């Protein structure tokens, strides 16, 4: 029986809804999704509407901020004092370690000079705070309070004190969205600190687990091994902690060992994060020196690599 077509049914359903309109709207939605999937118009739209979007984020995060502020305000002096002491000890320890590292860095720089290597390990970072909103519990995204106006760029690695958290995937003028390494669509090239085995760590969709589905069976990966970024792929600089192997077992096909790891970063607890400035070592062969090219004022669009301006500068002066 056709439900809404008859006279009485219209009286009850008030004729507000017809299948044709449903189909039209569904079609529009599907077309929008396909277009967006291909072209990424949503980001453009969000960027345009950021004057509206960003305040809403701040507003949604407000109650949690207030709760946190209240908690700090009513925390007993005892607790604060002990926390302060702990932090001071941690700082002391870190300071001592840093001092020792300084000499190592200096030594390293000397050796590198000898080797004529051009990489530098200087760490230039930008501080950012989390805006505590939840975009979707099944996508691991965090919102940060810096954006395009603060010179953040898409692809910048996000770290905290303990390790790599993720990377920036979307920019609004004063807000940025970062994808965590545990997002199911995220993958990060890692290297086993102990044995040097290289593999890829995929997000699992659970905040405390990374999957390493394709480790060769013969590879030397053991429970407790630390995983560092390998620097391959050119997105994350090498040597940052990513996680710790928790379990190694055979996968279903028996061809690979499948390991799981626990992320090193406090993904669900960090309130402040650091954005690494772009300083990834370029992979592949070094870019050709274009000292023979046209004058510098014509070579506008290509951002010159750090070594390029020196040879081309004399040409532009006369």
């Amino acid at each position, binding site marked *: 029986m056709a439900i809404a077509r008859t006279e009485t049914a219209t009286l009850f359903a*008030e004729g*507000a*809804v017809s299948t044709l309109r449903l189909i039209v709207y569904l079609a529009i*939605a599907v077309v929008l*999704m396909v277009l967006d*999937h291909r072209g990424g118009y*949503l980001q453009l739209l969000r960027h345009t509407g950021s004057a509206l979007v960003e305040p809403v984020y701040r507003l949604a995060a407000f109650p949690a901020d207030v709760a946190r502020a209240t908690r700090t305000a009513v925390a007993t002096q005892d607790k604060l004092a002990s926390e302060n002491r702990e932090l001071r000890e941690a700082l002391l320890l870190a300071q001592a370690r840093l001092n020792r590292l300084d000499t190592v860095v200096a030594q390293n720089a000397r050796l590198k000079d000898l080797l004529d290597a051009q990489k530098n390990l200087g760490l230039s970072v930008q501080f950012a705070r989390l805006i505590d909103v939840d975009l979707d*519990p*099944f996508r691991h995204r965090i919102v940060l309070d810096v954006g395009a106006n603060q010179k953040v760029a898409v692809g910048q690695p996000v770290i905290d004190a303990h390790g790599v958290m993720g990377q920036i995937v979307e920019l609004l003028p004063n807000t940025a969205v970062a994808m965590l390494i545990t997002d199911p669509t995220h993958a990060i090239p890692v290297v086993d600190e102990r044995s040097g085995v290289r593999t890829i760590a995929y997000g699992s*969709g659970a905040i405390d687990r990374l999957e390493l589905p394709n480790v060769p069976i013969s590879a030397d990966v053991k429970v407790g091994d630390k995983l560092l970024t390998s620097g391959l792929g050119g997105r994350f600089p090498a040597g940052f902690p990513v996680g710790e192997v928790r379990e190694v077992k055979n996968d279903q096909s028996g061809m690979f060992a499948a390991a799981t790891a626990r992320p090193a970063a406090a993904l669900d607890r960090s309130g402040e994060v650091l954005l690494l400035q772009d300083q990834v070592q370029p992979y592949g062969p070094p870019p050709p020196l274009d000292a023979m090219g046209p004058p510098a004022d014509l070579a506008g669009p290509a951002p010159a690599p750090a070594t390029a301006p020196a040879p081309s500068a004399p040409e532009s002066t006369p």
Partner: protein
Amino acid sequence: MNRTRAQGWLFGGSLAIAFLLQLMPLPQLLLPMKPYWVGLVLIYWAIEMPERVGLGFAFLFGLAGDILTGELLGEQALRLVVLAFIVLRFRARLRFFPMWQQALALLALLLNDRIVMLMVRGFSGEAMPSALYWVAPVIGMLMWPFVFLLIDDLRTRLRGSEPR
């Protein structure tokens, strides 16, 4: 005059609060259990005020949601249009269900919504979410009586303050 304006404020306010609740952070453990607030509030208004909440409204509302939280433009629009269509179709029955039956119908609606969402995400090439994905509709069902009674109560209060 004043009454209709107050009703309008309630209408807009409840929808805005639904968005804020949707964005509101929760402890990590509770995060997968967050019900689809936007959907719940839209269902309420589709049942109570179908002359305002048509398919077109659901669509535009969903687009707004996509701009706020979305990954894919049109995803929430599609979900809300489907929700609104089913609710409007069965509105006559849904309205007069006792609360527990209504809540069960809500569970079916929200599960259907999850399936629609899974389809959309599957097509756009995302991984299958974990089993916790299916918890949210149940929580949504449990929340429905509260949402319904709260908004209903506010509405009757607004109406009651005026002489009839």
